[in-house]
């Protein structure tokens, strides 16, 4: 069983985003969606720290620590980009102006709950903008491996970890499938080539079904 590669997962996620969409990409794998914008489309990338129209990483010699993304890595600004302060930036998020955010996840439940901020096991807790995005983006989508590295399901009937938001996730992109939380089960929208529904079901801790 192979399924989609990371780049294929990112491309599949990008394929569902409309031309002209305002998109916020979480740190890590979601950032890769920016490399797979379908031909003929423009996405405008939002960064929580006050950037709209964020561009790719600069060459090393052009790095500017006052032009960084939410992960605090140097980025660039594309033509048409704008800067603003944090209250305005989160007014965009909370106010429903971000069309799509693509987040990573520890767990997603079949009623759309998301856990991606706390592993609940002590240590220093940190939330950042995750809850604001979960509550405010018009579409909250998750891009993640279908299971943990240890093979445990990340798609569950109920969260075991502290929630980031309740009933917020509308689509999940994994290496095995594209799925939608449908209340008491995950609806499988698309299977990765060579992956069967049974294989997805075996790695999901909630009922799954084709639409």
């Amino acid at each position, binding site marked *: 069983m192979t399924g989609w590669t990371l780049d294929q997962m990112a491309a599949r996620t990008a394929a569902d985003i409309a031309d002209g969409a*305002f998109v916020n990409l979480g740190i890590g794998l979601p950032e890769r969606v920016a490399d797979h914008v379908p031909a003929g489309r423009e996405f405008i990338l939002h960064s929580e720290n006050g950037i709209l*129209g964020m561009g790719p990483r600069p060459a090393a010699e052009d790095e500017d620590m006052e032009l960084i993304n939410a992960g605090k890595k140097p980025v660039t*600004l594309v*033509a*048409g980009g704008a800067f603003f302060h944090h209250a305005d930036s989160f*007014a965009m998020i*909370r106010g429903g*102006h971000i069309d799509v955010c693509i987040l990573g996840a520890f767990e997603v439940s079949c009623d759309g709950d998301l856990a991606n901020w706390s592993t609940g096991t002590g240590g220093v807790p940190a939330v950042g903008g995750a809850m604001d995005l979960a509550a405010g983006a018009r579409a909250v989508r998750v891009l993640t491996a279908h299971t943990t590295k240890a093979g445990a399901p990340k798609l569950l009937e109920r969260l075991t970890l502290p929630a980031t938001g309740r009933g917020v996730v509308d689509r999940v992109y994994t290496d095995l499938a594209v799925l939608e939380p449908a209340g008491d089960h995950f609806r499988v929208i698309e299977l990765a080539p060579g992956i069967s529904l049974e294989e997805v079901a075996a790695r999901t801790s909630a009922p799954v079904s084709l639409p």
Partner: protein
Amino acid sequence: MIDKIARSAADALHGIADGSTVLIGGFGEAGNPTELVHALIDQGARDLVVVNNNAGNGEIGLARLLQAGRVRKLICSFPRSSHGHVFDDLYRAGKIELELVPQGTLAERIRAGGAGIPAFYTPTAAGTDLAVGKETRTFAGREHVLETAIRGDVALIKAEAADRWGNLVYRKAARNFGAVMATAADTTIAQVRRVVPLGELDPEAIVTPSIFVAHVVAVPNPVSERDSLLALDKGLAA
């Protein structure tokens, strides 16, 4: 390719439904999207709820929309003006509903509407007639009033310049309500004097980022409200 520049005001305003809430920018003449309001009259939507700081001046723009009988209710802070006869007559005749809101509360309710804040507490109007019937609560020993967000189905605003993404800059005190209303409507339509190439607006000086704007209509030479009022005065005097 993202291109929000509309071919015409009519194109941009297509589909505004009867009963819509329309936020209209401007304070006095500054920032008044007069041409868009005229296009709204042509478009034909009725039974509108309009949010504007004032209630129209003379017989152009908002005053003309009121005169055409299209507005069921006006939410504003200051519906009196030297040339406010259209609203005055409708109001005295009981033909229009008025919700009077302190100016700062009006601005903040719209800002809240754009920022995903359904309600907030403000000290403004506590203990006055404009707080009657409203929920109050004491913070730090002081009475505050609970105010709710205002959102529009449509916002009509005027800015100085735009690019094809819909980024906007304003001019001087014309920024006023437009920059706030732009954030608080399902569809924001901006008339601008100039359309400039993408990348020409200074990213540090953009007031309304592209995310808030749906359509841009170029109106290089908007009507002067002051000239229109002077003409009206001459006509009345003649």
